[in-house]
């Protein structure tokens, strides 16, 4: 029994967050600080004919105005954060990354054209109106399917078409499996775009100290170390001259990964040039236009089955919208490919995608990152197949789940980490049973639903299964130091955006060192404190950083035991660590505090044995062989108002397995957050672009986020723990879990509630309007 790991421990960081003491980027107010406003394009596709910033430069209070021309050699397309997956044979990938400021052509609405630096943000924004910009509008590529049609306008003039990538992967032989099939079900399925909509928009403050030749950047990034290394390279500085700090961040959700967005590249450059601190805080409208987005796929998918509902194969051919650029490689569509077979045993799988450039904001992972699309396609196929075969939706799923003795299971497709997707462990039938029992599936279908329907209520039930590939490499690290006070400091490279790192990582340390969780001081996201690692994404914090912390803590524990054994003249096996003390197990009075040990480990006089490392400190790293696979089953009961088509979620059950739980409270919180994002994706959050690629709902008045009242009154979470064999703690990720299955289960439950013959929902996000239209179309 663990003392700390797995316990419901309240979060260390919450008192600071709840009392307004936590530092966010916008809290910084440095002496002499200047402010930035960007002139952004009102067109999605246009040629830049003339740009005259002279009047803006003359406005009092304006310090500088920069255009692409002013950047000189610093103007260059941003880095490719994730390379093309050349491990997949025949892959086509055309790299086109974002540019800092528009030089010749605007490729998406809101693309920055010029930047104004002024004494205040007000002055900077006023000066934007002084800029004369002549844009010659071009026909925009707004529709994903039309983007690849012959004769479509080109987003990148140097390419022959808007094709950004093409990937084909196959496990087994689908064509052959299809021949043997009793039933083949084919559907066209569409998933549209949404925003990440973090509560805190992006923000950057950069400060150059000319005397020490040192640059400090505070950035709302999920990955401060890659940003530091990248900026140093671009600016021609040593990595040690650049410090990137990611302080508290109000939600990351993907677009804050190591993006090197234009503002991130420009603001440090300006700070060095002007030798003044520079601040830019994105406003909400900029966030809609200038922060990356996701989803946006059109699938032609089919499933081949035997008469008794056993899957013989799945074929999925889809288009993926990458927007104007593709700085994040193929992570999103690859995730879709590895999630279109889910927890089912699919012996034959053909999957092919084409990625298209469009005149929209570029697409990079947003919580779920391609997985929700794969799960939506798969679960819709399962529902359609169940109908075709006259099987119960739960039964068809049960018949196809990968059995518990089949792990590690080869999914057979190369994933976002360029490794064959392999499921490490799991018990899917047990999860399904837990969800079915908890929601009372049988009773609802046989008793409650008929009774409620007789009373005129449109109630329905849905159930969806999913997996979440997570905890991918390459590695993370941690340094742990026991201080003279007996308190422990942990420094790690991952950034934190609300995940509870200050607590869950502290619990891992506390478990090894026998100290109170509150006595572990956690430092994340500061490259001056720890500068090896990648960042927080792909649901990998608890797995990769967590196990690095575990490794470093184990090494510190060994040091503690070795030294204490000498001092207490007792063999190590007879010592125990508890309450900040090392004690002889049978004689608790014979003990020494960790603080005293730390002092003894760092002698100020005399000599030490050769090879001695000072202090009770250790640094260690962890990198898994391949990513872990978490899993879950969600069940939902909804009621639809047939007049307004508003949907009320009556019950929501989540049976989830993310291996060893570090802190159930935090895991629940992660699931809750993910669910609300999934509910948004299912019914509220859709970015609506017109035929000119103008974003028509670029404000929170019109882009609807689910509110607390749109969430179900009670979320029932059942934890199942199947430890991952890939890491010592047995952990798996949970950060994206909630967001992944909700669109799939939501539409299934809504379809079931409306019970309209011919109604089949093959798209998300829905809305009351859209649902009404679909019902009308089904009745015709």
């Amino acid at each position, binding site marked *: 029994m663990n003392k700390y790991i797995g316990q419901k421990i309240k979060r260390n960081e919450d008192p600071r967050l709840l009392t307004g003491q936590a530092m966010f980027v916008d809290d910084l107010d440095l002496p002499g600080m200047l402010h930035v406003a960007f002139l952004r394009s009102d067109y999605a596709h246009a040629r830049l004919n003339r740009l005259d910033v002279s009047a803006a430069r003359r406005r009092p209070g304006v310090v500088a105005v920069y255009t692409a021309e002013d950047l000189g050699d610093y103007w260059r397309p941003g880095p490719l954060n994730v390379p093309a997956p050349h491990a997949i044979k025949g892959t086509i990938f055309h790299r086109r990354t974002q540019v800092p400021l528009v030089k010749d052509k605007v490729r998406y609405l809101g693309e920055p054209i010029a930047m104004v630096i002024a004494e205040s943000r007000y002055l900077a924004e006023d000066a934007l*109106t002084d800029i004369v910009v002549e844009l010659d509008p071009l026909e925009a590529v707004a529709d994903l399917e039309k983007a690849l049609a012959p004769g479509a306008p080109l987003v990148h003039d140097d390419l022959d078409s808007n094709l950004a990538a093409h990937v084909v992967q196959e496990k087994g032989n689908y064509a052959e499996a299809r021949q043997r099939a009793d039933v083949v079900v084919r559907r066209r399925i569409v998933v549209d775009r949404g925003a990440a909509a973090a509560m805190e928009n992006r923000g950057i403050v950069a400060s150059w100290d000319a005397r020490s030749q040192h640059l400090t950047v505070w950035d709302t990034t999920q990955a401060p170390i890659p940003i530091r290394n990248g900026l140093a390279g671009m600016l021609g500085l040593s990595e040690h001259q650049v410090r990137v700090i990611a302080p508290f961040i109000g939600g990351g959700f993907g677009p804050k990964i190591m993006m090197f967005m234009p503002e991130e590249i420009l603001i440090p450059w300006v700070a060095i040039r002007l030798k003044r601190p520079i601040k830019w805080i994105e406003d909400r*409208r900029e966030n809609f236009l200038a922060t990356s987005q996701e989803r946006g796929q059109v699938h032609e998918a089919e499933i081949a089955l035997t008469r008794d509902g056993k899957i013989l194969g799945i074929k999925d051919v889809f288009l993926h919208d990458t927007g104007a650029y593709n700085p994040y490689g193929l992570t999103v569509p690859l995730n879709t490919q590895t999630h279109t077979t889910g927890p089912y045993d699919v012996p034959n799988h053909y999957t092919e995608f084409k990625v298209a450039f469009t005149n929209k904001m570029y697409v990079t992972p947003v919580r779920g990152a391609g997985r929700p699309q794969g799960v939506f396609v798969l679960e819709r196929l399962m529902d359609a197949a169940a109908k075709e075969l006259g099987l119960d939706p739960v039964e068809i799923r049960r018949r196809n789940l990968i059995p518990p003795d089949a792990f590690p299971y080869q999914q057979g497709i190369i994933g976002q980490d360029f490794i064959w997707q392999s499921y490490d462990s799991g018990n899917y039938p047990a999860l399904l049973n837990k969800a079915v029992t908890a929601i009372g599936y049988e009773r609802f279908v046989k008793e409650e639903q008929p009774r409620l329907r007789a009373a005129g209520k449109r109630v329905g039930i849905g159930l969806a299964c999913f997996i979440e590939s997570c905890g991918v490499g390459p590695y993370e690290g941690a340094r742990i130091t026991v201080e003279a006070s007996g308190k422990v400091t942990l420094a790690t490279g991952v950034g934190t955006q609300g995940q509870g790192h200050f607590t869950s990582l502290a619990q891992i340390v506390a478990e090894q060192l026998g100290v109170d969780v509150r006595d572990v001081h956690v430092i994340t996201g500061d490259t001056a404190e720890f500068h090896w690692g990648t960042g927080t994404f792909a649901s990998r914090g608890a797995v990769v950083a967590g196990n690095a912390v575990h490794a470093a803590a184990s090494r510190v524990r060994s040091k503690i035991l070795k030294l204490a054994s000498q001092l207490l003249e007792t063999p190590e096996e007879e010592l125990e660590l508890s309450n900040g003390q090392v004690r002889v197990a049978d004689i608790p009075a014979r003990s020494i505090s960790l603080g005293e040990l730390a002092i003894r480990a760092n002698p100020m006089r005399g000599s030490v044995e050769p090879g001695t490392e000072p202090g009770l400190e250790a640094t260690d790293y962890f990198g898994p062989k391949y990513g872990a696979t978490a899993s879950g089953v969600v069940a939902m009961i909804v009621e639809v108002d047939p007049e307004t088509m508003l949907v009320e979620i009556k019950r929501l059950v989540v049976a989830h397995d993310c291996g060893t739980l570090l802190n159930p409270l935090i895991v629940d919180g992660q699931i809750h957050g993910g669910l609300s994002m999934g509910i948004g994706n299912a019914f509220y959050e859709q970015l609506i672009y017109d035929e000119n690629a103008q974003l028509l709902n670029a404000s929170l008045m019109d882009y609807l986020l689910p509110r607390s009242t749109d969430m179900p009154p009670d979320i029932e979470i059942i934890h199942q723990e199947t430890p991952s064999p890939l890491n010592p703690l047995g952990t798996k990720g949970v950060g994206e879990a909630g967001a992944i299955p909700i669109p799939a289960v939501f539409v299934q439950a809504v379809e079931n509630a409306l019970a309209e013959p011919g109604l089949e929902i093959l798209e998300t996000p829905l809305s009351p309007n859209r649902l009404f239209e679909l019902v009308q179309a089904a009745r015709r």
Partner: protein
Amino acid sequence: MKIEGEYLFAGPRQAVWELLSDPEALAAALPGTKRLNKLSATEYEGEMEVRIGPVGGSFTGKVIRSNEIPPESCTLTVEGRGAQGFAKGTGHIQLSEQADGTTLMKYTGDVQIGGKLAGVGQRMIDTVSKSLLKQALETLNQTLQARLAAATEGRAVETAPPSQAEFATAVAKDVLKTAAASPKSRWLVIAIGLVIAFVVIGLVLSRLGG
């Protein structure tokens, strides 16, 4: 955005045609017009103050008349740009004489909008532009009546176009009507009603104070 509709002018076609060719009459009919200058027989240039929901600002642009078949039909191309975005549209106007001496105007158009106007003002633009058009046409019709009366009586024309405040109130009423159509947005009606009440109270107070 597609615009389509018709309007009945209480006067002969030739008089309506002349009215629609008069930049001063047009400028007066569109509240917020700061200036409208005739550049050539078919081209006007001007500046207009527009407020659509939360988006307000000055737009400068051009109006070009083409395909003219006096006094029957013409095409109008409008292009406006401002700090808040842009609008670009083409409209076709067709005038036909009615048996009772009135003139029926049929119009169709296609408008593209962009920038903040589209991103933030989108939800209001349909109602506001319809309202704007309706009021402009009503004002033009009044001017037409005044002109016709003046011509018979042989005196100078006097018409008072609606003030900014009258215009704003009319827009608010139209927005309210749209909102009232859906029972779910009853709260919106109440909210707008409250806002109007506050504005009125504010006006009264400011007058008392002044």
